């Protein structure tokens, strides 16, 4: 996994609550058996004026000029500013894959759906949580200044605005550790292999019915 330590990036506003993972990456693109290549179909139904299908040449499709990510000033964007309950709905990890593939490395919102939030950390994306008031202020600042950028530092857990104002955010220690070091958590869990084995043996003794061999 890619590391995340610190980022100074251009901010794009996604000014609506409850943005669901069906919007982030519509279902027709979930048929891929790969982890990459979802970026061109991020927010497909909002981003293009036609109906997207896998295998299309996305560069020749008609763009929706009103959609935020199609505006030239957001070229090279890496931070998304969002509203409450971002990423609700389906557990599809294709949503963070698409965000990452497009170029997003961090998100800022007052809240996220649980599964999506968890999926972000597995893909090197930092989902920052700030209070509704602060997020609201960032939306206003962003609106007022073209090229609005923020600095996000995971080590110090601080978001710094262009005027130097700082907001601290919380993040789970384990997730922070994995993200700072780009660690694969399967490897970490397997360091506890013997603990898992002994738990499993004990469980088998006490609750044998859970270990029935599923046979066709």
């Amino acid at each position, binding site marked *: 996994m890619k590391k995340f330590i610190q980022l100074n990036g251009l901010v794009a506003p996604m000014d609506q609550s409850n943005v669901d993972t069906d919007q982030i990456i519509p279902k027709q693109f979930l048929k891929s058996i790969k982890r990459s290549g979802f970026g061109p179909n991020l927010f497909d139904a909002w981003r293009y004026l036609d109906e997207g299908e896998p295998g299309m040449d996305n560069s020749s499709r008609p763009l929706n000029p009103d959609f935020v990510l199609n505006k030239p000033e957001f070229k090279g964007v890496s931070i998304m500013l969002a509203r409450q309950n971002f990423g609700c709905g389906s557990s599809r*990890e294709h949503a963070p894959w698409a965000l990452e593939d497009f170029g997003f490395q961090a998100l800022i919102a007052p809240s996220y759906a649980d599964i999506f939030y968890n999926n972000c950390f597995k893909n090197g994306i930092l989902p920052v949580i700030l209070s509704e008031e602060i997020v609201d202020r960032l939306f206003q600042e962003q609106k007022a200044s073209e090229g609005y950028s923020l600095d996000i530092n995971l080590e110090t857990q601080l978001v710094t605005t262009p005027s130097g104002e700082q907001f601290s955010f919380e993040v789970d220690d384990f997730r922070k550790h994995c993200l700072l070091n780009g660690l694969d958590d399967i490897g970490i*869990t397997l360091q506890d292999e013997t603990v898992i084995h002994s738990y499993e043996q004990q469980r088998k003794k006490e609750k044998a019915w859970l270990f029935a061999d599923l046979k066709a």
Partner: protein
Amino acid sequence: MADTLYDKLWQDHLVSERDDGSALIYIDRHIIHEVTSPQAFEGLRMAGRKPWRISANIATPDHNVPTTERSAGVDAIVDPVSRLQVQTLDENCDEFGILEFKMNDQRQGIVHVISPEQGATLPGMTIVCGDSHTSTHGAFAALAQGIGTSEVEHVLATQCLIQRKMKNMLIRIDGELQIGVGAKDVVLAIIGKIGTAGGTGFAMEFAGSAIRGLSMEGRMTICNMAIEAGARTGLVAVDDTTIDYVKGRPFAPTGELWEQAEQNWRQLVTDEGAHFDEIVEIPAESIAPQVSWGVSPEMVLPIDAELPDPAMQTDPVVTEGYKRAMEYMDFKPGMKITDIKVDRVFIGSCTNSRIEDLRAAATLIKGKQVSNSVKQALVVPGSGLVKQQAEKEGLDQIFVDAGFEWRNPGCSMCLAMNADKLGDGEHSASTSNRNFEGRQGHGGRTHLVGPEMAAAAAIEGHFVDVRTWY
């Protein structure tokens, strides 16, 4: 100490706790389907890892499979990308020796229908699947959660998940439901009250006499949509209804092991006086048949209501959301729910495709005809065994005589990954779980309802108060 059901399940599966508060949780059952697993198997292979415990896994293809005639098998799936995904699941399961009910196996169906049906879902288990509606299995007092693909790989490789303990929420529905009001209406009413983020960070236990009075099918419908209220996991305590449902299922324990298991399962209830961080109460009598009108499951109203005015909302974020929804759905404030016309009707999905759902719908439409204004009415049973049972009871004939199409099992129009979808601008009466923009087809407009309400809308061509039909 008095524990909640969730506290007990958490404690029982705790492998180890770290100083930072995260924990390793053991996973008893892992259910696999074709959409969220290929990248996980590929990851395993690339790292040279093997599944930790093969017999913890059970698989079936459901999201992509055609629901029309499909006896020619997987190679005959028309959409090449769908075909490859189903083939990839078959290959992965064959390679690793994982039990899979393949597309034309009688036991194939929607993951959340087949696992309980086979007794692969048991009380007291931890159950995961790369699908958010895994919360369904909480109806059995199992700690069941949807996970992403990285976690699918993690569970395959380690039989564990890294988690933090959630908070406890109690939803109590006491009293008696009105005639014509079912489990789907109850859960939609809950989501309408607490919102789609109301349960975020919580394990949500459903209790009260109205929940106790529901069948396992009804409880599964409720737990299925816990995720639509933001909760990864929904729970219902064990009682006789649970035990009776599990007994005799193909993978359920038998003999002495059954006795041991039952004794253990009977303890899977919240202790008197246990602490909940939040409690929500809704009197059962107050719940009317529900219809969602917007693009989020929380945009839901009783059948006798009128559409809200976005301008009258106090929260500007809500006003904006309602405005967008009205525009997408092509509605005006003040319109009556009963004036909403439907173009297509879908009875199916992991929320409402079990035998009881089909019986409820069939009873209501027997001898009636689907309205001429309805372009298509689909019934998609949740599994091959549900289909077989329904056919034994003659339900298929009732549906076909009324003008419904009787299909093969799969996820179908719930998320339209196969050929079953809404056209641009069409409205559906759908027994599924999500009314997000484009969920059932590009530009499609979904209305979430229970099976009785969907059946009645098919007959009348618009939503009607099904309570008047009894």
